[in-house]
């Protein structure tokens, strides 16, 4: 099972109009990306320290990588995690009455996953990206 399956769920629930569905779409869009990034880091040989928080660990690895595309992915996670927290916990927020946040989250997650795939499918590109990540 791959994390990006959650992005399909995000697209599915985003078609429903209720605020609950719009919030769920944001949440799934975030998880689709963060799980794929986590698993890529594992595949690339990085190990998460036992006491670290997986969300922060993944974000920091990407944001502080020298590779530009990894930084873009880290930036997407920085934005999406904030939106995900708001969607999951801030029930007073009126932001999700509109479909715009969910659509943006799905787009950002999709774009970041395309970058990840480009890196993954090109051995030279992948080696350079891995070398740019701080342990």
């Amino acid at each position, binding site marked *: 099972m791959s994390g990006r399956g959650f992005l399909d769920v995000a697209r599915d629930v985003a078609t429903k109009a209720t605020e609950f569905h719009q919030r769920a779409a944001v949440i799934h869009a975030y998880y689709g990306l963060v799980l794929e990034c986590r698993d890529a880091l594992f595949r690339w040989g990085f190990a998460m320290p036992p006491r670290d*928080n997986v969300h*922060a660990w993944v974000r*920091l690895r990407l944001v*502080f990588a*020298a590779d530009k595309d990894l*930084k873009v992915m880290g930036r997407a996670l920085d934005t999406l995690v904030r939106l995900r*927290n708001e969607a999951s916990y801030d029930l007073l927020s009126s932001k999700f009455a509109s479909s715009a946040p969910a659509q943006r989250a799905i787009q950002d997650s999709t774009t970041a996953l395309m970058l990840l795939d480009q890196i993954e499918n090109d051995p030279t590109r992948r080696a350079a990206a891995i070398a740019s990540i701080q342990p």
Partner: protein
Amino acid sequence: MNTITTVPLAIEPQAAQLVKELGMQAELDQMLERARQIIPGLRRLHVLFAPPYDTGPDPSVVIEAYRDAAAQEPDDLHWDLYSKWQSATISPDVYRHLTLLIVDEINHVR
């Protein structure tokens, strides 16, 4: 380039308190100043408190840099510049607590 006097800055009291507790005022000031220098079309800066949800172990502070969406370049070169500066200047330990996000605004001025 933007100047300090033309970019409004708002800091939530809870965010200011956390920055003080963490002893990261200098780092926050550095990040704000760099954002003012680098981000074209910057309209305002908003410093928010972010509670410690399950996606990170600590409470943190988020700097929202509101930018005129029309000022964004195709490759977002200025964000790339900021990001490189940040990686070279701000440690991951600081970044865990202080994060800058660029928010594009379309025809919306407060």
